[in-house]
């Protein structure tokens, strides 16, 4: 097995997770080291594999490894085949790289938790599942990884299961994900029925010959799956609650990696989406709605993690919008996915660092003026902030700008929405920034903010550096576009206006957002410790723009009514008839049971009488 074997890549964290879970408490002492080492080792393998790819000529940049034949049923055969190509190569670097940093960070962050070993086992499990997801060479294996990621997410959100809210959030995430999983399952089944195979090469090669409506249905089913996993409208409501998990989890899973699985799925299935305009439009609409919804929610939340979660929704909305644009946008979606992975992980970890210093208080109204007491955190957070609002030359500037540009090329409305989103992003991120690090201290009594230990700040610094340089680096040094070209076939379109206007326009919108935020929350403005009631708009945003209410009204309510009806029918009609029969026999039994006196000798007497009867009958029959 070579060093860059995909199986090794998945195997290392999986074995580590198994070891940690099976050994249990015996591995408490060194569990976090093993987990971190496994993650870093996996990163090493990923680097080696990608280096190998780079060394190959453009046409053959792919490593395939068939681990074993999974099953063969009739003509249908599925292999466990893992493949590293340009797209998954990018992902494995992101997953293992950011993952390793977050592992390191977690050593410090979770140091007081008695279940730290279990936490690292789950993290490793997550890494393994996520790697399986992106390395899979067929949809069925991808489904395994997809479910594994869902499981790991469930375990990690509910990690502090003693908190009722955490276990509820874990359940919610899991159940909403199931809705999405249904979409993936439906897509896989449709593929099997249509193409007789679920492996990527076969499906993508034959998709052109399938009837158009089938392709559309497959695309829509895949979109449903992507909505579930990536928290897109209308399955978005779990992401905000998922912030109940430990902060590194939020950083790794609910910002940098797992939630991007939907984007990956759509990008990976570009061969399918290229063929269906309806499917792409649906993706675009979903992305646009989520992008605006997330941004609006981000404005209203006082909980720093939830504000960041809203931001995540919004940014993934950007990515979905980009993949919905078709070949124009795929590359930029992946580009934004990478940069977002860096700066959002950075900011989440920064938020975790702040919470660490503030006795786990998440309410930004209790923060303020932290820039002095947490210099490193402030510095790294600031870079992440500049990156996300799109200030040149930080990472977000490049990626977001490209998406806005691509959106305008495709449709003016989408471009306008993306531009508006950029403005709102600037506004709410500035709000977070000002409320947390500027203004006056509004600390609760007994809170003494302090900088986090090195084990936590070093990942922050690394991620901040990446947030700062990744945009320029990926676009112009590594040339991501060219790297992904063989897979995603990017094209360019025509802007409806002069291209020179785009950059100043975008920056102007961003600046407006920042300035508005400065007047509302920065400068000398007094921020009340108790949140004001706010207008209807703010209240709706605080209530996640009716995400839960939507679920309640559209899904749960009708479901409950249907169940109630069925129960009534069951009780009044079916049970009644069955119970009637049972009651009859119970009554008869009640009369007969008095024969059971409990006296063995009475039973023996009955047996003797029986013997006499049987004997007599036998005898008489024999005689006649």
């Amino acid at each position, binding site marked *: 097995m070579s060093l860059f074997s995909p199986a090794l890549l998945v195997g290392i964290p999986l074995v580590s997770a198994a070891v940690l879970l099976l050994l249990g408490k015996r591995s408490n002492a060194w569990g976090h080291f093993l987990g971190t080492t496994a993650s870093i080792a996996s990163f090493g393998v990923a680097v080696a594999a990608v280096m190998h790819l780079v060394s190959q000529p453009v046409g053959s940049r792919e490593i395939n490894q068939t681990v074993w034949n999974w099953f063969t049923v009739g003509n249908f055969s599925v292999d466990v085949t893992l493949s590293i190509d340009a797209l998954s190569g990018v992902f494995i670097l992101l997953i293992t790289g950011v993952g390793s940093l977050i592992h390191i960070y977690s050593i410090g962050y979770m140091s007081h938790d008695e279940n730290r070993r279990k936490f690292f086992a789950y993290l490793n499990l997550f890494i393994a599942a996520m790697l399986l997801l992106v390395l899979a060479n067929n949809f069925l294996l991808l489904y395994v990884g997809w479910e594994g990621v869902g499981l790991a997410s469930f375990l990690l959100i509910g990690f502090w299961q003693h908190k009722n809210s955490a276990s509820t959030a874990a359940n919610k995430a899991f159940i909403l994900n199931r809705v999405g999983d249904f979409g993936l399952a439906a897509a896989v089944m449709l593929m099997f029925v249509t193409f007789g195979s679920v492996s990527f090469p076969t499906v993508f090669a034959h998709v052109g010959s399938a009837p158009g409506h089938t392709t559309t249905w497959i695309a829509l089913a895949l979109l449903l799956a992507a909505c579930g996993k990536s928290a897109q409208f209308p399955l978005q409501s779990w992401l905000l609650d998922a912030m109940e998990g430990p902060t590194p989890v939020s950083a790794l899973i609910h910002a940098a990696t797992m939630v991007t699985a939907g984007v990956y799925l759509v990008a990976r299935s570009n061969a399918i989406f290229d063929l269906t305009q309806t499917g792409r439009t649906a993706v675009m609409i979903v992305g646009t709605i989520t992008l605006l919804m997330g941004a609006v929610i981000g404005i209203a939340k006082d909980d720093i993690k939830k504000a960041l979660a809203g931001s995540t929704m919004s940014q993934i909305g950007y990515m979905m919008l980009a993949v919905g644009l078709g070949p124009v946008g795929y590359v930029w979606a992946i580009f934004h996915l990478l940069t977002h992975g860096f700066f959002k992980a950075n900011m989440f970890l920064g938020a975790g660092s702040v919470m660490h210093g503030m006795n786990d208080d998440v309410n930004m109204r209790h923060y303020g003026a932290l820039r002095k007491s947490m210099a490193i955190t402030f510095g790294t957070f600031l870079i992440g902030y500049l990156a996300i609002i799109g200030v040149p030359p930080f990472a977000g500037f490049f990626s977001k700008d490209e998406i806005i540009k691509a959106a305008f090329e495709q449709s003016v409305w989408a471009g306008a929405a993306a531009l508006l989103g950029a403005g709102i992003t600037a506004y709410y991120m500035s709000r977070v920034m000002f409320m947390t690090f500027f203004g006056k201290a509004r600390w609760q009594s007994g809170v003494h903010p302090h900088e986090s230990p090195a084990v936590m700040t070093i990942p922050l610094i690394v991620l901040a550096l990446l947030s700062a340089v990744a945009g320029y680096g990926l676009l112009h040094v590594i040339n991501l576009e060219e790297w992904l070209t063989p897979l995603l076939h990017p094209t360019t379109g025509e802007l409806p206006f002069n291209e020179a206007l785009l950059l100043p326009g975008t920056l102007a919108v961003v600046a407006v957002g920042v300035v508005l935020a400065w007047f509302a929350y920065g400068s000398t403005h007094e921020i009340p410790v108790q949140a004001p009631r706010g207008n209807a708009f703010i209240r709706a945003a605080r209530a996640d723009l009716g995400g839960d209410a939507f679920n309640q009204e559209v899904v749960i309510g009708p479901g409950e009514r249907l169940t109630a009806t069925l129960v009534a029918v069951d009780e009044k009609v079916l049970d009644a008839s069955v119970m009637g029969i049972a009651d009859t026999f119970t009554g008869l039994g009640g009369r007969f049971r008095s024969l059971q*006196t409990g006296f063995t000798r009475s039973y023996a007497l009955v047996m003797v009488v029986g013997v006499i009867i049987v004997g007599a009958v036998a005898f008489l029959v024999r005689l006649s």
Partner: protein
Amino acid sequence: MSPAHYLALSALLLCLGAAGVLIRRNAIVMFMSVELMLNAANLALVTASRMHGTLDGQVFAFFAMVVAAAEVVVGLAIIVQIFRSRRTASIDDASLLKY
């Protein structure tokens, strides 16, 4: 002696055993009566074996003995267990399992 004599003896012993099972209350004595009935059956089997001139009847009697031995072991263990919990060997006191 003709087999009829042996069969009559077997029948008599069987009735005696049945009477013991029905009349005695001591669980162990009841059990002994069951053994007597089994013995009566064995006698009939041995007699039948002689009547027909084949050994199958004796083999059957042999199996009956083995089964009886197994039954006695378990049955007496149950009686001991009942005695331990209820401090009595009377079968009528173990009559909780009723309507």
